[in-house]
């Protein structure tokens, strides 16, 4: 127990005496919290530009163009004389959709026949594609329904009755949790989980790499350098466990603040839809942070240099983010890969945190995630103990006045 408190205090000294680690544990946490949400500040894409090729020049075709322009997701950015002209605008990325209203449009409808308009939409950008499709479909649907309802009214039906008859099976669709479809509300909470994990892993790796450099004489020792295990300490399991837990206590106490900042303060600052159950949130954050810390300590012994952890871990963020299943549905990830992905604390962590923090789930709703995280805590705790014990045996013991 005394050993545990001693290591804890020593690790605080290592952290707070190392500018590099401070920059990751605090600097990066703060910086990314401002920088990452930046592109999504407007939350939704409005007024996707499209070109209208109006071959009819009738009052009805002009009305359709006006209605498309008025819809919030689309804007008529250009009236093109021909399809060729519209295509040029398209390739130049001036417009991302083309609406073609055919010759005879109005006359066909007046003859009570069916007329069709064509819309070409840019599927190389999915969000733009969606907005163009929505704008055109809604505007056209409204115009079409209006025409038919007027006809039915002329035939003697009331307007309400006409609407009922036209759409005998109505659907009321309710968007839950992120009703406005805000992009920041969708992406940023998941990215925040990833930032916590990656900075913690890199920071722990940097502390260990620094200690290793000092130990192996790769660089001149600095007064702030850390140690894997103190010189002359035993390598019995009691000591190793005390060390793993002591260091973890230091990281955990710091990241508890960071997690509170990320999961409680930031969602309010950015006005994300949030339905928070503080106790449930805490019960999920606890195993998540522990799993990441023990994973960090297990990996740490691989790093022989101060920078190695950054080098080796930076590129893992992006694949890990898409493996977490928040954007690409987890059901569509191949089963073997999905299995492997649960070895990353971020997979269950992101899923659980989004459900509790954004969707208002209770702990019982995310019990699978919690179970996975505690499993990882156990697994990585043993790995951390094992690898620290192994590395301590392997390394030469040097006398150092830094040792207490």
């Amino acid at each position, binding site marked *: 127990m005394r050993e545990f408190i001693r290591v804890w205090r020593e690790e605080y000294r290592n952290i707070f005496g190392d500018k590099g680690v401070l920059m990751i544990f605090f600097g990066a946490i703060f*910086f990314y919290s401002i920088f990452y949400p*930046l592109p999504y500040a407007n939350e939704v894409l409005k007024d996707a530009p499209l070109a209208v090729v109006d071959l009819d020049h009738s009052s009805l075709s002009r009305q359709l163009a006006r209605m498309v322009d008025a819809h919030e997701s689309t804007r008529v950015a250009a009236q093109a004389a021909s399809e060729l002209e519209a295509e040029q605008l398209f390739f130049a990325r001036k417009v991302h959709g083309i609406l073609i209203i055919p010759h005879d449009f109005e006359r066909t409808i007046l003859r009570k026949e069916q007329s069709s308009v064509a819309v070409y939409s840019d599927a190389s950008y999915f969000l733009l594609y969606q907005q163009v499709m929505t704008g055109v479909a809604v505007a056209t649907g409204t115009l*079409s329904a209006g025409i038919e309802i007027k006809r039915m009214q002329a035939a003697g039906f009331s307007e309400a009755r006409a609407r009922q008859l036209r759409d005998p099976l109505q659907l009321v669709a309710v968007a839950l949790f992120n009703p406005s479809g805000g992009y920041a509300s969708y992406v940023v909470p998941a990215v925040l989980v990833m930032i916590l994990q990656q900075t913690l892993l890199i920071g722990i790796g940097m502390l260990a790499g620094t200690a290793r450099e000092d130990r192996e004489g790769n*660089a001149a020792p600095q007064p702030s350098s850390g140690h894997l295990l103190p010189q002359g300490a035993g390598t019995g399991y009691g000591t190793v466990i005390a060390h793993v837990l002591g260091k973890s206590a230091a990281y955990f106490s710091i990241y508890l603040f960071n997690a509170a900042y990320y999961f409680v303060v930031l969602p309010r600052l950015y006005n994300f839809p949030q339905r928070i159950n503080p106790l449930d949130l805490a019960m999920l954050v606890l195993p998540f942070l522990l799993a990441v810390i023990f994973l960090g300590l297990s990996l740490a012994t691989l790093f022989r240099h101060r920078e*190695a952890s*950054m080098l080796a871990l930076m590129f893992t963020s992006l694949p890990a983010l898409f493996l977490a299943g928040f954007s690409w*549905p987890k059901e569509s990830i191949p089963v073997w890969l999905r299995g492997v992905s649960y070895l990353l604390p971020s997979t269950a962590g992101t899923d659980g945190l989004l459900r509790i923090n954004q*969707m208002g789930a209770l702990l019982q709703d995310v019990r699978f995630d919690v179970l996975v995280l505690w499993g990882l805590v156990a697994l990585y705790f043993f790995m951390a103990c094992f690898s620290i014990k192994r590395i301590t045996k392997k390394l030469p013991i040097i006398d150092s006045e830094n040792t207490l």
Partner: protein
Amino acid sequence: MKLPAIKRWTAAEHLGFTAVVQRELVRIFSRRIYLLMVLLLPLVSFAVLAAIFSTGSPRHLPIAVYDADNTDFSRRLVRLLDAAPTLHVAQRVTSLKEGKALILSGASYALVVLPKGLERDRFRGQGAQVTSFYNNQSMTAGSIVNRGIRDTLKAVSAELDQQARRLRGETSPAAAAHAEPIIVESRALFNPYLNYLYFLAGALMPTMLQIFIIVVTVYAVGVEMKEGSAREWLDTAGGSPWRAVAGKLAPYTAGFLCVGLLMNSYLFLWLKLPLRGSVTLIALATTLLVLSYQAVALLIVAATANLRISLSTAAIYAAPAFAFAGITFPVMAMPLSGKIWGGLLPLSYYLVILLDQGMRGAPVSVSLPALAAMCGFVVVIPILAVPRLGRLMVDEQQWGKR
């Protein structure tokens, strides 16, 4: 007269570009980290990304149904929902509460409620109503599921309308025209099946590549200062910082170029992304991508003169690049600061060219501005970085900093 000239020539042969390249090759093979980071890990990460999206577009996403009506009609609706390619009725629930719990736990993406009296209302022509609740926090899955439910019910509704019209005495073709005076014929250009693999893998792989390029370059250059070997590096180059930098980076340029072209082949040949434009232009852009990120890496090391800080800076620069490149969330919707930052990333231009010359099949002239911007990075940035880097190489006070 002759002798010194020959001597100078041989000295240049020994100390110069080739010598630095040789020195660098020795360094590369002496530490496993280089080969890992230049060749193996980029390829592994490409394969992982491709595997994630290998299904192309999500199918059979689980939804729950609360069928309170339990009639022939409602059961038919359930069957139709289950038959929709994007949907899979994974659960039948007996209360709203139960259905909501399934959405919260992630077992289903939506709950469709078929209320009591649905069939009766339909027979009376009283506007039967179905409600669906879908998870829009998981926006990709949520909107796919919502679309699936909407299209299924719309088809049923249209069919019922047609039946009613025929009962009222309209003929079949006329009934269709009357029900919907205007229809929309829609075409998804370039990616007609809305394949996410085409959409995302094509953008994510270059994003991974730029991280590897910048990190490796920063490390390879910065470690010379940290470990105090910068002077020897410069001496090997015969005192010219330009030759020192060129010789040092050349092996990595070659390595990353191979990986970049492999990436292009992987995307277009193996994963079959549409390739409708100029292959030459794509290869050229890939070359410029490697060079421009190497240039930015030089600038970062020159500006910070510290390996760790330059790696952190590189992380800040390259790690969030995907968000700023405007593929998922378009540039036009970003605030000005986001647009500017995106414009400072060679990746943004590269992805424009890759889309133009790949999927979109745009004329070459459309891609020239982006190509020019990438050339700008390659030409301007080294002019800013290399002279200062040269001064750092001889400034021993800057060495050993961690």
